[in-house]
C-alpha cells in the first residue's frame, strides 16, 4: 500500500512560514499534481514528502507508517529532479542501476532491470555513454529510467520537463502518462505549467502562498473553481474577471450592463472561450484591439468601455480587424460569481443554470 497522508503538515524556516496546515491524502496508484505559481511552496512540499526537507510540524505517513523521521533512503520512493541530477562520473547504465548498486545487488542481477527500463525508454544504445554526451531529452529519460529501476512505491517528479523545449515537453509528458498507466504506481508531480497539470493528473492540488486553494480533478477545477485564484490560475488563456455591484435586476457591471446573478457577488468571471460574439444585442459592446490568428482558434483582445480589457477566444477563423466593434454575450451557465473575499458562490450559480 502506498497511500500517503499529510496531516496538518507545516514548514517554517525560522519565523518564515512557507507551508501552513497542509491536509492531503494521496491514494494508492493515484497521479497527483501539485501546481501553483513560483514560491507557493509546492517544491518544498514535495521535498518534505521525499524526506529531503525536515517537517516542522504535523505528520506525514506512507501506508499508515509515520515518515517524519525516516531517511529518504528508507522511504522507498524515487524522484526525478528538475536538473535531472545525473551522476556525471557514471555511465548511463551505472546511473540507472545505482540504487541496486547501493543495495549490493550482484552486477549480473542489475543488468536485467536496467536493460528493460532502457528499452522502454529507447535508451538501449546509449548505456555506455556519460551524461555530458547526452541531449536534454535523453538525460531526462535516463533520470526517469533511474527512478524506474529503483522500483519504488511512489514516484516524485520535481518540474521534470521545465528544461526541455516545447516539442520534447509534449513527448515526455506522454511518456510519463504511459509510465503511470503501465506501472500503476502512486505519483506526485510538481509543476507550474497548468497544461501539464491538466493533462497528467488524476487530481490537482492548487497551492498559493503556502495554502492549499483547491483539490480536485482537472475538470472540477476548470468548471467549478472554488475561488478567484484557482479560476484565474487554471485554464489557458486566463479567465476574464470583471467587477460587479448589486443593483436593479441583478448585477451591474462597470459599463452599466445588467447580468442575472446572486446579489452578494462582487466579481464576475468568464472564460475567453465561453464568450460568444453575436450580431446585435449581447451583454456588452467591445472594440477589438489585437487579433491573434492561431489557425485552430482566434484570440481577440478587446477593450470594453468602463470595464477594461476582455479576451475572447473563438474557434476557427473569423473576419475581424482591429478597431471593429463587436457585441459580446455571456451565456448564463458559463458565468462564475465570486463574493468580495473571492470565494465562489456556487449554489447561486447552479440556481441560475
Amino acid at each position, binding site marked *: 500500500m502506498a497511500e500517503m497522508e499529510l496531516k496538518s503538515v507545516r514548514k517554517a524556516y525560522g519565523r518564515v512560514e512557507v507551508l501552513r496546515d497542509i491536509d492531503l491524502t494521496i491514494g494508492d496508484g493515484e497521479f497527483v499534481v501539485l501546481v501553483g505559481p513560483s514560491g507557493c511552496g509546492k517544491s518544498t512540499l514535495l521535498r518534505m514528502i*521525499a*524526506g529531503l526537507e525536515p517537517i516542522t510540524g504535523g505528520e506525514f505517513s506512507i501506508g499508515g507508517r509515520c515518515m517524519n523521521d525516516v531517511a*529518504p*533512503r528508507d522511504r522507498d*520512493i*524515487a*524522484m526525478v529532479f528538475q536538473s535531472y541530477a545525473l551522476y556525471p562520473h557514471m555511465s548511463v547504465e551505472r546511473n540507472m542501476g*545505482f540504487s541496486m548498486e547501493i543495495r549490493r545487488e550482484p552486477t549480473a542481477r542489475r543488468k536485467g532491470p536496467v536493460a528493460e527500463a532502457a528499452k522502454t525508454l529507447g535508451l538501449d544504445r546509449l548505456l555506455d555513454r556519460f551524461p555530458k554526451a547526452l541531449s536534454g531529452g535523453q538525460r531526462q529519460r535516463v533520470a526517469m529510467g533511474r527512478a524506474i529501476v529503483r522500483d519504488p512505491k511512489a514516484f516524485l517528479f520535481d518540474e521534470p520537463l521545465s528544461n526541455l523545449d516545447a516539442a520534447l515537453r509534449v513527448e515526455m509528458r506522454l511518456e510519463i502518462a504511459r509510465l503511470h498507466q503501465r506501472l500503476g504506481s502512486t505519483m506526485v508531480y510538481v509543476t507550474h505549467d497548468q497544461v501539464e497539470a491538466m493533462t497528467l493528473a488524476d487530481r490537482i492540488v492548487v497551492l498559493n502562498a503556502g495554502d492549499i486553494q483547491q483539490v480536485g480533478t482537472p475538470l472540477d477545477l476548470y468548471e467549478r473553481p472554488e475561488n478567484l485564484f484557482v479560476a484565474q490560475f487554471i485554464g489557458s488563456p486566463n479567465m476574464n474577471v470583471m467587477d460587479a455591484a448589486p443593483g436593479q435586476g441583478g448585477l451591474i457591471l462597470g459599463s452599466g450592463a445588467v447580468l442575472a446573478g446572486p446579489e452578494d457577488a462582487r466579481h464576475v468571471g468568464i472564460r475567453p472561450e465561453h464568450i460568444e460574439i453575436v450580431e446585435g444585442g449581447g451583454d456588452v459592446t467591445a472594440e477589438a484591439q489585437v487579433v491573434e490568428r492561431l489557425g485552430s482558434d482566434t484570440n481577440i483582445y478587446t477593450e470594453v468601455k468602463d470595464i477594461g480589457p476582455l479576451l475572447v477566444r473563438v474557434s476557427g477563423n473569423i473576419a475581424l480587424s482591429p478597431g471593429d466593434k463587436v457585441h459580446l454575450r455571456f451565456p448564463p451557465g458559463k458565468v462564475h460569481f465570486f463574493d468580495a473575499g473571492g470565494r465562489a458562490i456556487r449554489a447561486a450559480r447552479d440556481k441560475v443554470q
Partner: protein
Amino acid sequence: MAARTRNAPVLSAGKYLAVAFYVAFALFPLYWLLKIALTPERLIYSDGTALWPSTVTLDNFRTVIFASDFLGYFGNSVIVSLTTAAATSMIAAAAGYAFSRFAFRGKRWVVVLMLLTQMFPLLMIIAPIYKIVASLGMLNSLTSLIVVYTAFNIPFATFLMQSFFDGIPKDLEEAAMIDGCTRFQALRKVILPLTLPGLAATLGFVFTAAWSELLFALMLINSNDAMTFPVGLLTFVSKFSVDWGQMMAAGVLALIPSCLFFLFIQRYLVQGLTSGAVKG
C-alpha cells in the same frame, strides 16, 4: 571603426612586444639560476656576467646531490610538505563540506575565526609557538613543523574546498540519498569522485606553501638532521658563501617540486587565489 582597423598592425606589434617583455621578465631570473648552476666552477668569474655559458657541466649538481647534506634536506622537506598537504586537504575538505552543505548556528563565527587567522601577522605567534614546542620537547622534530603548517594552511584550504563543493549541485547528493545512500555513502560514491580535481588542486596549493616556508622552520629547527630545504640552503649560503655554482644547483633542485606542482594546479590558480591563497 575604420581608425581601429588601420591601427591594428601597430597595436598588435606593441602587444607582442609587451608579451615578450613579460615573458622575459618572468623567466630571466630562473634562467640565470640555471645558467650559473651549469657553469663549471673555474669559469664562474671569467664567464661571470656573459649571457651564455661557454661550457656546460653537471658537476655542481653531482656535488650537491652526492657530496652534501642536501639530499637529506630535500627528503625532510618532501616529508613535511607531503604530510602537511595530505593532512590539510583532508581536514579542510571536511570543513569545506560543512560550510558548503549545512546552514547551522555558529557558522558565521567559524568563518570570522578563519578570516581572522588570515589577517594578523603570523610572526606574532612565532615566539609563543617556539616556547610551546620547546616545552613539549618537540624542537627539531618534523612533526611539530607539520602540525604548525597544517594549522596555518587550513583556513585558506577550507575556503578553497568550499568553492569546489559549492560547484557540485546539491541535487546529486539528494538523488543519491533517494537512491538509497546514507549521507556518508553519498559523499563517498558521488561527491568525492567529483571533488577529486579540487582535492588535488588543494593538495598542490598547500604543498607549494609548505615547501617554501622558511621563518618558522628556522625558528623550530636547528639540528642538521631535521633541516628542511630552505633552512639547509640558507645555512649553506651563510657558511660557504663562495660556492656559487653549488648553491644555484641546490636552488634549481628546490625549484623542481614547486614547478611540478605548479603545472598541476595551473588550471585552478584563479579559484585558489580568489579564495585567499596563503602564499598570495
